[in-house]
């Protein structure tokens, strides 16, 4: 039986890490002659932990990727923003209806270069999760994103987006205020931008909610992130009427970074630290920062028109089909 949550899947490892922490705390209180013995034990635990991580993380299947991508301690957009940018000033409001906390954004400084950052934001505890609406943006979030994209375009700021959402908000309110139109308009806006745009999928790249802010010149994806047309549980519910068949759907949907790269839908996979981004958020942020800087540098020399054209051509080519020339065999 496949694990249902990241916590369940990582439990033995988490328990090991917990004992390790307890052991370390005890050492200081123990008398001198006992310490050596305990230090040896710590080393042994560390070895076992590393081995465990090695085994678990070296062969993550699609469903395990789903669990890790959704892991609660995984760094979220604001964690990366705080670690990567020297300065960030959050702006808010769509100037039409309201404020949305599932998408954050504003100008930031990346190694002295002013950029515009937009990203989905998850919450860590129950209250925060509700405040962020589980990173499921309503129309206001996408309309705020549009406002910031247009501002970036006016002021010549490169755009960076962080993608991490299970889906756009499917509720009655969102439907009544045009969630579909908001997502479509956000994509439309991105395709008109004359500044460099780089997107990175850092956790869940959930369907329309994700692509709504991911129409970029360069699309990056973290090693254990997922990117999917539909959540695996939703896919299982529709195809087999069994939402619990998520693991089977995850495999069928090919939602891993490796598959996305194989189908030429992303440009690069950004490596994560040993045992996943949540084991060492700062190291993860360093790798993300390096990837963002490299990507922006590659786009730096392109003219506004060339940037727009490159973005069009990039997405224009996406898709796999056959175009059989049957004209001759027909007569």
């Amino acid at each position, binding site marked *: 039986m496949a694990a249902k949550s990241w916590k369940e899947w990582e439990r033995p490892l988490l328990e090991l890490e917990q004992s390790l922490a307890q052991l370390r705390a005890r050492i200081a209180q123990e008398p001198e002659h006992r310490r050596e013995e305990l230090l040896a034990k710590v080393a042994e635990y560390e070895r076992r932990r590393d081995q465990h991580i090695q085994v678990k993380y070296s062969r993550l299947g699609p469903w395990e990727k789903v669990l890790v991508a959704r892991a609660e301690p995984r760094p979220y957009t604001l964690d990366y923003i705080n670690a990567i940018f020297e300065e960030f000033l959050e702006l808010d409001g769509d100037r039409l209806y309201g404020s949305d906390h599932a998408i954050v954004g504003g100008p930031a400084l990346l190694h002295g270069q002013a950029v515009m950052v937009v990203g989905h934001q998850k919450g860590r505890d129950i209250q925060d999760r509700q405040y962020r609406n589980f990173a499921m943006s309503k129309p206001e979030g996408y309309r705020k994103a549009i406002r910031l994209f247009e501002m970036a375009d006016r002021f010549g700021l490169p755009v960076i987006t962080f993608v991490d959402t299970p889906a756009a908000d499917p509720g009655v309110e969102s*439907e009544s205020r045009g969630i579909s139109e908001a*997502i479509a308009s956000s994509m439309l806006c991105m395709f008109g931008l004359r500044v460099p745009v780089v997107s990175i999928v850092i956790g869940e790249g959930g369907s329309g909610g994700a692509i709504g802010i991911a129409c970029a010149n360069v699309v990056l994806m973290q090693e254990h992130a997922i990117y999917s*047309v539909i959540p695996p549980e939703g896919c299982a519910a529709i195809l087999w009427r069994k939402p619990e068949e998520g693991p089977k759907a995850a495999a*069928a949907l090919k939602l891993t970074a490796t598959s996305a790269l194989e189908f030429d839908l992303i440009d690069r996979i950004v490596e994560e630290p040993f045992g996943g981004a949540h084991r060492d958020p700062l190291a993860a942020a360093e790798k993300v920062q390096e990837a963002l800087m490299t990507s922006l540098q590659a786009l730096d020399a392109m003219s506004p028109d060339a940037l727009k054209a490159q973005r069009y051509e990039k997405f224009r080519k996406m898709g796999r089909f056959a*175009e059989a020339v049957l*004209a001759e065999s027909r007569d």
Partner: protein
Amino acid sequence: MRLGAKPRATGDAFIQCAHCRKTLFRREFEQNLDVCTHCNHHHRLGAAKRIEITFDPETFIELDQDLRSVDPLLFPDYRQKLADAETKTGMNDSIVSGMAKLNDQEVSIAVSNFAFMGGSMGSVAGEKITRTLERAADSRIPAIVFCTSGGARMQEGLLSLMQMAKTTAAVERCRAAGAPYIAVFTDPTMAGVLASYASVADVILAEPKSLIGFAGARVSKQAQVTKVPDGFQTAEFVAKVGMLDRVVHRRDLRRTLSSLCRMLAGGRK
């Protein structure tokens, strides 16, 4: 309330409305463009019939007809579903695209067929919509797209999601070129199609009572969306909240489209 889609044949001369269940004369029903003469229920139309009743007779030239879906993900049962849909509809995929004339005006058109895997958008549908919009942009002529779809085609995974971006990019191209783009939402227009090229048309028309929405019933159920207002996700509801221009009876669509194309393409050059 979910509206019935297909009328039921009750003998050669009669047909039963899928909505009000009244028995209708088949000839009368067909002359009324598959709209119930009692309750006005608009039954779903196949692509061929839609083209026939909308555009000038014998002006439609199909293009892109050699595009065929492959099974890039080796998704369970996908090949079989494609084969079944081909047999059932006689079509290669969910979209028919090409050029036609509307009151002598040249238009680039695409028509979706719900009977082909729920009108879902995979790589082929995305490519056909994109080419339809590009042809309009290149020749600066109007594009007309009849939408009906359950959304993105799951069986092509992320490739399908990217069709949302690709088709929307093509709309941007139409806008830049000054080619009018009109979308007609028919029953049902949902999810990935609604949240991409469909919703950013210059003008959006819809057939009465069409189901139009972002989240399908089963997705909503999963997300535990329970209470919904009356008429939620109907064309009339979507019009009321300002997300489309006009709800148009099927018999008035040709006239409305023709009038729009003339006026929108008639600006100062």
